[in-house]
């Protein structure tokens, strides 16, 4: 079999990259050590959010959002996408001032999607919210989608265009030989001129093996879901001073996240839950949503996610041998970016450039003298 590209990793980013490469008539193989969508892409909170993105991510996030609004045209499935809006709430004037400052910044960069609102509009949008809140920041055309359904839709569309998926197969090492990248797996070797690293929380290993180490950590954001409740909430809610991502699904269950981390074991591919941290999450919810005080939690889980030291993903070519491209380490907010990053990768492969600004995501950005390196925390969702 002649291949134009081998993609390592069957998460949303691997599937999206493969889909875009196939749309550009390249023959692709996706190699996935477990099953497609088994990790972060299939178990995340499903937040499709431009709201409160790092300024560097805004252009990508805005481009991705345009794709989300028409997602069925791309993949033939609505991915469970709901145009619910996203809102970040302030519990006091200080927090509100920070959100307003943020809105000004976004506007100064030329974007209109973040809008500060006062108490009246806040309670109109989120009637169940505790009355001590004072205002918020809204992105009315953000939303959420079903993570596994989405990843599977990208996979199915890619497969319909001829992309091959090899599940249960682990890439053990990669090397470049005679103009080809060779992916050594536990089920044989696969060669192609192009190698795409979409290995999520394991992406640093491939990067390091090809001469581009990245300061990186694997984290395990935790989620909880409640038993079904009568409908009381439309938008996805986050909070300025709290770790929170909070949404009610169509079936009435409430999905709660927000960046409390459990234990991560990347090698074993497993996570463990930290109930003391989840208790804090429960306290936040009980304070902000009195209606939740009678709810019960039926399930908790965590997913493995690669966190780069500056909280931004790695997107772009490697610095050494030609033909290798990276898109990994999405640092707890890569689901929304999935549709756009696939396009960026495919453009890089076929045209050598992207029309979106990806400079901030260079793999060698840490090779320069480091700026402040914050500890991973805060907002998934």
């Amino acid at each position, binding site marked *: 079999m002649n291949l134009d590209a081998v993609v390592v990793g069957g998460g949303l980013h691997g599937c999206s990259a493969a889909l875009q490469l196939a749309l550009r008539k390249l023959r692709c193989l996706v190699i996935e050590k477990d*099953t497609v*969508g*088994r990790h972060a892409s*299939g178990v995340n909170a499903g937040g499709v959010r431009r709201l409160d993105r790092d300024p560097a991510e805004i252009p990508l996030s805005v481009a991705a959002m345009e794709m989300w609004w028409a997602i069925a045209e791309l993949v033939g499935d609505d991915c469970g996408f709901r145009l619910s809006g996203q809102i970040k709430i302030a519990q006091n004037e200080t927090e509100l001032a920070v959100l307003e400052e943020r809105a000004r910044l976004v506007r100064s960069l030329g974007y209109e999607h973040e809008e500060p609102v006062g108490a009246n509009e806040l309670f109109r949008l989120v009637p169940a919210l505790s009355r001590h809140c004072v205002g918020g920041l809204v992105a009315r055309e953000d939303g959420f989608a079903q993570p*596994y359904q989405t990843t*599977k839709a990208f996979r199915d569309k890619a497969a319909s265009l001829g992309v091959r998926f090899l599940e249960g197969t682990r890439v053990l090492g990669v090397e470049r030989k005679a103009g080809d990248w060779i992916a050594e797996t536990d089920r044989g070797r696969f060669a192609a001129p192009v190698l795409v690293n979409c290995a999520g929380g394991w992406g640093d290993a491939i990067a390091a093996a090809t001469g581009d180490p990245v300061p990186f950590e694997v984290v395990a954001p935790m989620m909880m879901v*409640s*038993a079904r409740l009568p409908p009381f909430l439309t938008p996805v809610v986050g909070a300025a001073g709290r770790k929170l991502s909070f949404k009610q699904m169509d079936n009435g269950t409430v999905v709660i996240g927000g960046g409390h981390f459990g234990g991560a074991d990347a090698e074993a591919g497993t996570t*463990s*839950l930290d*109930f*003391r941290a*989840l*208790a804090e999450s*429960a*306290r936040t*919810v*009980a304070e902000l949503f009195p209606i*939740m*005080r*009678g*709810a*019960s*939690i*039926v*399930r*908790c*889980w965590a997913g493995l996610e690669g966190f780069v030291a500056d909280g931004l993903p790695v997107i772009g070519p490697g610095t050494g041998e030609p033909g290798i491209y990276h898109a990994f380490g999405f640092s707890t907010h890569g689901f929304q970016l999935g549709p756009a990053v696939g396009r960026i990768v495919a453009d890089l492969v076929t045209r050598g450039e992207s029309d979106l600004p990806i400079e901030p995501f260079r793999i060698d950005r840490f090779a320069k003298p480091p700026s402040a390196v914050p500890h991973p925390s805060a907002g998934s969702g």
Partner: protein
Amino acid sequence: MTARHELAVIGAGPAGLAAAATAAELGLKVALFDDQPAPGGQIYRGVERTPLADPAVLGDDYRRGADLAEAFRASGAAYHPSCGVWLLTPERELGLLDNGQARFVTAGRVIIAGGAMERPVPFPGWTLPGVMTAGAGQILLKSAGMVPGKGVVLAGTGPLLLLLAAQYLRAGVQIAALLDMTPPSNALRALPHLPAALSAFGTLAKGLALKREIHRAGVRVVKGVTSLRALGEARLEAVAYEAGGREQRLDSELLLVHFGVIPESNTTRSLGIRHLWDSRQLCWRPVADAWGNTGAEGFAVAGDGAGIGGALAAEYAGRLAALEAARALGRIDAAERDRSAAPVRAALAKERRVRPFLDVLFQPAPELISQLADDTVVCRCEEVTAGQIREAVGQGCTGPNQLKSFTRCGMGPCQGRQCGTTVSQLIGHTLGRPVEEIGAYRIRPPLKPIGLTQLAALDGEGEAAA
């Protein structure tokens, strides 16, 4: 400080009561946690104070339970009733919901004696109000002394079904019919196991006595029943089935079904303990050695949660696990453990000899799963049908965990307890592969739903050690 116990026992059925009493008598500091308000477990539920005027309704066995409970009370083991365990970590931290209050404790060793659950078997109409498991009916009888007013229809297979029928008769309940769904061919297949079973003559004699009692009472017993269906709009109105090649129908307001019991394996699976598919009992059970030790360091299993063996076997296994705990914690040496264990082990072996015969004799028909109608609901919580599961398999879904992602099957409040065994078998059947290879749901805590407010009140600070 989080309370720390030398030995934590989960479950106050015969296995847990015997384990806790034995260990406490050997000087261990024991705490027993059970989610029920009183000791007894399933079989001896409410044994210290049965609400029935005449305890004979429940049979002689009940008295053995009273003795067990008494010995446990006298042993010095700390007893925590109405205290559910919703979290177990490999570090032997237990998350408790103690009379509604969430807290943590830790333990040097843990004996899991959580018992069995009734085997959920989906059939058309099984989710209608008015359809209940026989065990749920029995709980009403044992704990509230409540008996359904009108005649009931009993259906399924297994010794408990006969026992329940007899208990109902003694309590004055009218049984409209007992629909025996045991495949007629089971008897022949069980025959080779009969000689071994004869040593447990008492158990077999009890079974025969039950049959005679039901017969004498004039209960209509229909053999070779298949294609059970519960009919009705908002609730059960009639029961339909096939027998003797003919379609039959019985008007009824209460249908009690029972297809045997299986280990409640969510608890043990949540620890990542390896489980085997028991192809005779048609269920998952944890892999454990002769003392009940599992692959999870410091965790042992005892009783029906380790594989169905009945109340006496559970009691013996509880004692063995306690002896091993006393050895591991330095109270007795291996020689003393083995000496004390020898008579218990002999009794256990004798008790177990009857199982292969009973397991095969009462094995539910494979068609109950393989021929499940496409429109029958399998996952009650998320309302996923057999047809949707087959369709997901057709789309490349190869196991129960992937099925969750495909269909939400198993993701509701029951944590997959109601559909898990069916799902593993159905996927195996659809793919033509052994259940063992298909695997089971990965289980995440909380093992049982926990209130958001209860979770919010959890601060990791427990009381001082008991």
